[in-house]
């Protein structure tokens, strides 16, 4: 109980609450502008959180991420353009409902069920992670090696599109992770005599480049597309209209939240994949599947809950194992390391008050979503008028300053530029970004755990299967690779 009291004291600090409010508004703004994603909100926030204590820093990121995933639904409903990829699954339904004068029902549903999904995911996080951490305490380098392999494998096969192209992304990330002398042998690799590169590829400037600068380049190239005037939403009775939906779709809300949490917890899969899968599941089990895509609220309830549940679920592997569940938590893990708060099971032992504080922050962020979301919907038509041609240059300046503030030198800006161009080229070639990020974050972990294990086992490969949990996770990782291969062979045979 004492720990809980300490945690409450950490969060109840007016500074933390103010940070949450400000980053919530920031998240709503970024999320509701098409083209700016939740990951971008996080990447742009990181340089600022860099100067905060761990709790306000994480609070800022958690709040901004949750808000921007919800806010992505607003332009979907008003403009038929999803604000973030996570809203793309049900944009057609949301827009048609608004057009038919049912904006209250549509926006109310995404807001209320986003909050429900987020809170559900948080409750699972609170219940599951201490138990998982207990198990994780027994992990040695063998288990961690396999966990990393499993995470990287999931990232490849879960990402939408071609798994081969996802692997290209992973290879890029892994290569970037080998640069510098931060490896078990402490040898300088691929530095070409450059002193800055000795420290390796600084993670946050790379992220800012991949997610934010690349987006600015895309906007420069595509220019302003024919702008449509946003529809005017109706906010009267936004919340009361949802009581009926809660009565009508309790199973959908629960299923969306549960599936979303699970998908979020899978390494490499985040809110966007969760929303797509939940929308499909909802349609599959619906009594009226023919109404999906024509302005039906059922899919909104389920997928809306799912994408926010995924945001919370992604934190389970991040906090327990230090393995990110999606690109947002990948950024946060980088931040946690910098703050000396090494994610992993020991954090539950050494600093339980921090973990409890994070749990409270999660619940608070999802509750804060209700009033702030209401405000955002009210102001939406005005925010959506902010011209992108003015906004994009400003974002680029924030990218530059953000990258600079991490290294305090032009090196950060150079990295940001290089990765920005890389991210632009990758997106042009349908190569997903998330596996590269995971490769960059997990590459050093993979290398360290492999080499430590090999030294311990004196080069005996079988040692990777000698401990029961290691063997189990290892088998699972191999299965992730085998299943698609077997399916491919079977399909070839059938053809």
């Amino acid at each position, binding site marked *: 109980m004492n720990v809980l009291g300490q945690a409450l004291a950490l969060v109840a600090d007016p500074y933390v609450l103010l940070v949450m409010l400000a980053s919530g508004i920031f998240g709503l703004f970024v999320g509701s502008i098409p083209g700016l994603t939740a990951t971008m909100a996080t990447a742009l926030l990181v340089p600022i959180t860099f100067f905060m204590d761990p709790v306000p820093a994480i609070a800022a990121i958690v709040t901004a991420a949750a808000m921007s995933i919800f806010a992505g639904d607003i332009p979907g409903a008003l403009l038929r353009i999803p604000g973030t990829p996570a809203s793309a699954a049900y944009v057609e339904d949301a827009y048609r409902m608004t057009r038919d004068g049912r904006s209250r029902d549509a926006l109310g549903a995404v807001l209320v069920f986003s909050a429900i999904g987020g809170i559900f995911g948080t409750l699972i996080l609170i219940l599951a992670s201490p138990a998982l951490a207990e198990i994780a305490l027994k992990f040695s380098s063998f288990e961690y090696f396999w966990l990393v392999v499993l995470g990287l494998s999931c990232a490849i096969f879960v990402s939408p599109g071609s798994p*081969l192209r996802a692997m290209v992304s992973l*290879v890029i990330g892994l290569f970037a992770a080998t640069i510098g002398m931060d490896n078990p*042998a402490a040898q300088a690799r691929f530095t070409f005599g450059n002193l800055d590169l000795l420290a390796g590829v600084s993670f946050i400037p790379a992220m800012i480049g991949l997610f934010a600068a690349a987006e600015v380049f895309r906007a420069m190239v595509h220019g302003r597309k024919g702008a449509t005037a946003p529809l005017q939403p109706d906010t009267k009775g936004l919340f009361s209209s949802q009581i009926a939906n809660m009565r009508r779709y309790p199973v959908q809300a629960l299923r969306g939240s549960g599936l979303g949490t699970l998908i979020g917890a899978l390494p490499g899969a985040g809110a966007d994949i969760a929303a797509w899968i939940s929308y499909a599941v909802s349609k599959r089990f619906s009594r009226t599947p023919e109404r999906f895509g024509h302005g039906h609220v059922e899919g909104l309830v389920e997928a809306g809950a799912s994408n926010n549940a995924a945001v919370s679920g992604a934190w389970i592997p991040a906090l327990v194992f230090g393995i990110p569940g999606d690109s947002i938590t990948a950024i946060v893990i980088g931040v946690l390391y910098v703050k000396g708060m090494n994610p992993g099971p020991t954090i539950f032992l050494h600093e339980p008050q921090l973990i409890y504080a994070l749990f409270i922050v999660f619940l608070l962020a999802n509750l804060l979503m209700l009033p702030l979301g209401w405000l955002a919907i009210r102001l939406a038509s005005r925010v959506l008028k902010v011209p992108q041609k003015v906004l994009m240059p400003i974002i680029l*300046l924030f990218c530059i*300053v953000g990258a600079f503030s991490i290294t305090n030198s032009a090196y950060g800006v150079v990295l940001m530029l290089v990765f920005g161009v890389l991210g632009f080229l990758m997106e042009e070639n349908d190569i997903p970004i998330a596996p590269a990020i995971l490769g960059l974050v997990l590459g050093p972990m993979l290398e360290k755990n492999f080499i430590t294990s090999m030294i311990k086992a004196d080069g005996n490969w079988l040692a990777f299967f000698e401990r029961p949990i290691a063997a189990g996770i290892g088998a699972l990782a191999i299965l992730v690779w085998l299943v698609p291969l077997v399916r491919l062979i079977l399909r070839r045979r059938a053809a």
Partner: protein
Amino acid sequence: MKLGDTSLGILVLIGGLALFWAGLGFSPIPGQVYGAQTMPKAVGVLSIGLGLALILSGRAAGLAVTISDWARDPGAWARLLSAIALIVAYILLAGTLGFALTAFGLLVALMLLTGTRVLTAVIVAIGTVTLVQYSFGQLLRVPLPRGDLLALPF
């Protein structure tokens, strides 16, 4: 511009070979089989396999390179390359000109590129630079380059 599987595969294959070859130059931890060479070599092998798989999967389509819609528009190329050039210019000039002046120039130039009116661009740029200089330079104590010409008075 989108590379087909074959052309992407060739690039990945070359990259993988180069990585593996570079990996040969690193040495293991003394007394061990594994060390600094392990990871580059492993990623190299993975890339070589991946490159071959891509080449195989794209063999029907040949060396297809699809040109996206925007790439047919020279204006889009100009905007993209100018944006990159402007960031390079920022990196080169910020040290001598200082953050405020360079960032102002960068913002105005970028906004003119995207088709903002001059007056709007200048006003927004002044506002943004002041805000960033104050929030990052003052509140967060990021040592933004001051420059000799125009160091803002805070």
